[in-house]
């Protein structure tokens, strides 16, 4: 009889403790709203770039915000490749001994622009603008803007580009087909008018 009671007590404590623990954990979770990603994946091939740029090091290790380099994205339809001057801004001093960086410096000294290869592209009859998407999902997203960092921004970019924090050179991991875009627009309340995207 006694031990029965004790067993009850024990279970009660365990359950209770668990409940409290979980609720606490729940309250700690970030509450930023992110775009509902449309279903569908794509296994893009690894593109060989003139310089094997390590996105992971820059974002995951050095915590550099995506928009620091791809800065055009918030003012233009294209996110753009950062100008070489921007790379040199840091790499005049940082990691100058690495072969990749030496290659970079070489381009810079020859005053040549680096022939990057395009990985993500839409057909020419499609009008896609980064600035509108970034505005909606980043800059109009209050609690995201509150704590703006690579880890809060990257998930937004990830919706179309995959999580670059896990890649060296970018790889295409989303289908980027019309059906896929439409699904996303329906899920996140994007415009449904053909001429919004077709030109």
């Amino acid at each position, binding site marked *: 009889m006694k031990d029965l009671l004790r067993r009850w007590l024990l279970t009660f404590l365990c359950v209770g403790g668990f409940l409290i623990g979980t609720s606490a954990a729940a309250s700690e979770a970030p509450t930023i709203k992110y775009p509902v990603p449309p279903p569908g994946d794509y296994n893009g091939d690894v593109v060989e770039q003139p310089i094997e740029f390590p996105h992971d090091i820059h974002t995951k290790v050095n915590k550099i915000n995506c928009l620091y380099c791809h800065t055009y994205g918030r003012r233009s339809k294209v996110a753009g490749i950062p100008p070489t001057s921007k790379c040199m801004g840091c790499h005049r001093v940082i990691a100058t001994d690495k072969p990749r960086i030496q290659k970079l410096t070489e381009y810079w000294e020859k005053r040549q622009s680096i022939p990057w290869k395009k990985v993500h592209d839409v057909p020419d009859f499609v009008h896609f603008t980064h600035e509108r998407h970034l505005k909606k999902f980043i800059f109009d997203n209050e609690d995201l803007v509150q704590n703006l960092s690579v880890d809060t921004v990257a998930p937004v970019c990830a919706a179309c580009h995959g999580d670059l924090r896990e890649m060296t050179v970018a790889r295409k991991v989303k289908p980027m*087909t*019309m*059906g896929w875009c*439409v699904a996303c627009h*329906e899920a996140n309340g994007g415009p449904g008018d053909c001429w919004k995207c077709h030109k």
Partner: protein
Amino acid sequence: MKDIAIHSQEKDIREDLPWKQINTDILRSLDNPRRGYWYSIIVCLVLLAIGFTAEVIQYQTGMGMSKNHPHMWNLYIATFIFWIGMSHSGTLLSAILHIVHADWRKPIYRFAEAMTTFSLMTALLFPVIHLGRLWNFYWVVPYIPSRGTWPNFRSPLSWDGFAIMTYLTSSALFLYIGMLPDLAIARDNTTGWRKQLYSTLSLGWCGNDRQWRVFRKAYMLMAIFLIPLAVSVHSIVSSDFAMSINPGWHVTTFPPYFVAGALYSGCAAIITLFILLRYYFRWEEYMTLPILEKICKLTFAIAMMWTYLNLVEFASVWYGHDVYGKEVLWGKMTGAYAPAFWSMMFFGSVLPFALAFRSLRRHIPTMMAVSILLNVGMWLERWMIVSPTLSQSFYPWSWDVMWPTLTSWAIVLGSFGWFGLLFLVFVKIFPSVSMYEVKEMVYHRKLATEKAAARVGGAAPAYGAHMKKEDAV
């Protein structure tokens, strides 16, 4: 109509034809036609080749090969309507005449139905051929799309798709069902691959009572279903034009007008093919002159109907006082298209009077020529519907006469080759005269003559009840 057959001097068919001979005569068409048949095959092949090359070129280089601004539609659509129209008479003969128990249809409805099916298959090509990007033609079909895009259900063009596909499937089915008993006969009288083919197709027909009863019902049902369908199909095709706002197209009488035209060209085509088959397979016994006469009479009637509807259209335009419409009509009559227009009127409304004379009706070569000319007229009609309107629509600045290019002519010719080929192959593989119905027909004849004899001899007939019925008629 049955008793017309009885009392007329001449018989649609000899009542003393032994059923065995019927089988052998008809099945003969499966192996040894006249040499003319093979010549026709070659001609068709050549035409088809020409058409095909033209289409390939057009596909490679673009629609510029066959069109010009503002003539977005031209020969192709005209020919499309022509073929659709051609398809209608098959249904008319088999379905309508079947329902009204017109015995004389029996030897000829089979190839008429085949004609229906094949002309539909030909017609179907043209809307696709005339597309600027024909490799995307399937976008008109409402498949569940990954992009969330649907066809436009308001567009007559997408209606066309539905209508024609329905008509094609059902008329093909009709043709097949009607053939079942004959396929069985063929199965029992052939060997080798044919035997296998027919045994699979005849679905184990053994001709017992139940099968016959079900068969009759099914056949009748199909017939009844087909008649309104046929009418609706061409009405829908006509709405491609009637639904537009263009002067000369935006006409309320178009649906009946189109249907009439359709039956007209169809009947004319039947005459042509009637004569050809009769020649190919030595079927004078079955495709007799009296039957030919009957088709001719039918054609004449329809011709008059068509003429009437034509006049109605002109009149309505004339009294409608729609400036644009009037100008188009006047342009047709006097402008660059005048020759085409007036020859259409001649072939369509004057020439048919040849069918009113018995002597001409019975003269095979004349009928051959007439029937072909009638169809030329009907083709011109279609062209005269499409082009003049585009030539002088609302906007004078873009007025322009257009003459079809070689490419488009080639493709039109090709379509005839395609149709001919399908048809000729069909008649070589399947019994193109319905054996079992011809037997019926012969039987009916026999009864009739016996009755007549009885009336002369006064001998007591074997089966009074039936006789009485005959009397009553």
